């Protein structure tokens, strides 16, 4: 097993943990945390493939990971603002009780 296998496996495991949390938890903030974990697992893949790729001097993986981090930050900001807005309306962040988009 090469180091690349190790990095890819840890990334897959982190992705699975985030997915399990995102689909099983009831609190919407924890669901968002799970999505962040999945995004970070993808970032780790970018960096690992860049480092062990045939041409690491090209810097494509690093730039891609940087852009991915920035987009994930924007996603987190908008997601949390949505959750706060939903909380003001429903007085709950429980996803099982937030089941309509109107009223």
């Amino acid at each position, binding site marked *: 097993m090469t180091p690349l296998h190790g990095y890819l*496996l840890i990334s897959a495991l982190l992705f699975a943990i985030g997915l399990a949390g995102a689909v099983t*938890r009831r609190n919407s903030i924890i669901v968002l945390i799970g999505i962040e974990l999945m995004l970070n697992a993808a970032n780790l893949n970018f960096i690992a493939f860049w480092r062990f790729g045939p041409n690491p001097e090209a810097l494509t993986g690093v730039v891609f990971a940087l852009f991915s981090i920035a987009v994930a930050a924007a996603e987190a900001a908008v997601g949390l*603002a949505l959750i706060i807005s939903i909380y003001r309306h429903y007085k709950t962040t429980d996803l099982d009780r937030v089941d309509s988009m109107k009223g």
Partner: protein
Amino acid sequence: MTAAFIVICLVILASGIAAMTLRNLVHCALSLSITFAGLAALYLQLDAQFVGFAQILVYVGAVAILIVFAILLTRGSEPGRQSIYSPHWLIGVGIAAVVFAVIGAVILSSKALVRPQAPAPEVGVRQLGDQLMTKYVLPLEVLGLLLTAALIGAVILAMQEGHSKRAGGAE
């Protein structure tokens, strides 16, 4: 497979599982920041220094604080004694396990991944800045636009209701 890699992996996995299973939401956010810090350590091990420090700045510094604030602002909704998991949690865990099994099987059976490790590339911040200002300048500008739009959108989403209430009270 160095000892440092194994230790960092154990920290990442333990804190990731804790972030997904703990009952107290603030504890979840704190374990999440430990996961982010561990990932930054992995980036440093992979010779991507700038991405590692950006990870610490953006995730441990900003996103974790943002999540803690969101948790504190929605504090009244914490479940008392009821379950923190959805009723069909077994199906969700099963789906995640299947996804991991598929990805893991593909990784372990792939022949394309077996290649000699290249020597550590000379990647300074200077080269990265050069690339960002020449080859990737258009994506960088688009990204700045996206961040601005997300910032304005988040502010509008989070403040709308109080604003309309105040306007209603003034009438």
